[in-house]
């Protein structure tokens, strides 16, 4: 399946992915409801977008007590709004911190790869986010380790 591959060194922190994502998912430009989130590193000198890995276990999906999370046509785990009761179990079951809860709708929400045409990848002006047929991986770990080294100087 295709997944969102992140090239963190290309990210400039422009936040267009967050805007595009929230618009696609909710119909409004409200970054608070984006399921891709740009993280600052080293006191805002580096940035990288972070989102659901579509992990093989799908901890969110297996935890849901009512089967409200399923696997969509393009292989992404997706929340069925009509079935979700808003119990939040998926938000603590996902060990990556990429399940969200919308207090307005009282439903969980997450990255569903926009059904195969991810808005974030389209919106990114530097191609820091691409939609590729590769195995999912830890795209940010090495980058973050390097970019945070200075923060940790002085910390023993």
């Amino acid at each position, binding site marked *: 399946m295709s997944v969102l591959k992140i090239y963190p060194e290309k990210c400039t922190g422009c936040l267009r992915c967050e805007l595009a994502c929230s618009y696609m998912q909710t119909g409004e430009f409200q970054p608070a409801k984006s399921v891709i*989130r740009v993280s600052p590193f080293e006191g805002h000198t580096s940035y990288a977008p972070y989102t659901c890995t579509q*992990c093989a*276990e799908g901890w969110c999906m297996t*935890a849901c*007590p009512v089967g409200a999370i399923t696997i969509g046509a393009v292989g992404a785990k997706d929340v069925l709004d009509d079935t979700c009761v808003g119990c*939040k179990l998926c938000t603590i079951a996902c*060990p990556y911190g*990429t399940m969200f809860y919308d207090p307005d709708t009282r439903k969980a929400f997450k990255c569903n790869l926009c059904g195969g045409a991810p808005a974030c990848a389209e919106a990114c002006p530097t191609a820091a986010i691409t939609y590729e047929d590769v195995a999912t991986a830890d795209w940010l770990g090495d980058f973050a380790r390097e970019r945070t080294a200075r923060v940790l100087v002085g910390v023993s």
Partner: protein
Amino acid sequence: MATRHLIIGGGTAGINAIRTLREEESERSEITLVSAEKPYSRMVLPYYLDRSIAESHVYTATARVLADWGVKAHLGRRAAALDVKGNVCTLEDGTKVEYDDCLIATGSSPVKAPVPGADGRAVHSFWTLDEAQAVVAELTPGSHVVMVGAGFIAFTILNSILALGAKLTIVEVAPRILPRMIDDTGARLVEAWLKKHGVAIRTGVKLTKIADVKGRKQLKFASGADIVCDLVIMATGITTNLDWLKGSGVRVNHGVVVDDRQRSSVPNVYAAGDIAEGRDRVTGEPAVHAIEPTAQEHGRVAGANMAGKDVRYRGSLLINIVEVCHLDVASFGAWDDATAETATGLKADRPAYRKLLWRGDRLTGAIILGPSQDIWTTNDVGMLKGLVQSGVSLARWKAHLKKNPFDVKNAFIASKTTHTLLPETILGRPSKAPGDTPVAV
């Protein structure tokens, strides 16, 4: 002859085992389910109570679905005895069910405070669908509800009671609320928050009697004033449903003792969920984790092994989250380990609170409290689970987190936690979607 699997108890653990059996088996087996209740999820009962879902929504497998899966179901019937030498389970009505292997998944039952009047009118536990229906029928807007007990289960229904327009008083015998879910500091914050939202709380009070007075309920305590109300909900604890296994020879401690394949002391008898005492992933010690995710994982591991696969379980992680009046309260792993190294952070105005616990440079437990609309709380909730679950070495991030317990994300990402977590699956393969269970042909 097809293998005969017997599943006893059709709750979360039992139904997950059945689905996994069908997913994993190489040859079609015979599956029999014996369950005192129809299969449903207890943890969605609070949403049935506040009427945001219909009763039909709580069921995890309807008669139709069970038939599709090829399950012979005895619903509304109880197992009364297990003969592990003859491989026979006897039901309360005398029916005998033979098996080649069986799963004990009979869960737990609520325990009411042992006071006169506890069995009277308008006094209910909130554990089963029947009890939920009774409360739904009796709870009307403006009525005064007294919740006896301030544990996790009480808190899962608190929002629903308030949403229905009832007045709520919580009474707790312990000196503080949520004694088994969060620490003192967290409990104080939650208590203040609830009082601010109009919930009356009395801690350290011992209920001695419930009487009927002019059509209302009167609660008497060892000290302090009486309370008069319309409805009493008893959330005073649960007990593991082990009684029917007495004399069976299956080894029992706090629960049915199981190995890393969910197998009991009897090789063809498995146990899963609230009833099972398996490995705690963080401490490595045997524990009963009476929570939904444990029931689900136990059930799947048992199902896979019963289907002939060799699936080993790494142990269950204690995780709990509850939202009260738009405040998220969550705890993970060994959050109450008195000998662990700890760091705390408090922002009293928000309110937001963190407690992180370490063994060496591994995060072994956490408590997190924060406003639900604060999206960063949600992010951190998951990442703290990931740090505890993966047990990644935090190295120098430990000192950073000790100073900045609110800066979880950088620590999570830079410790390459994602890299450690990604290969892990419960069954050694990608999970199937809930609707993808193979059906009978």
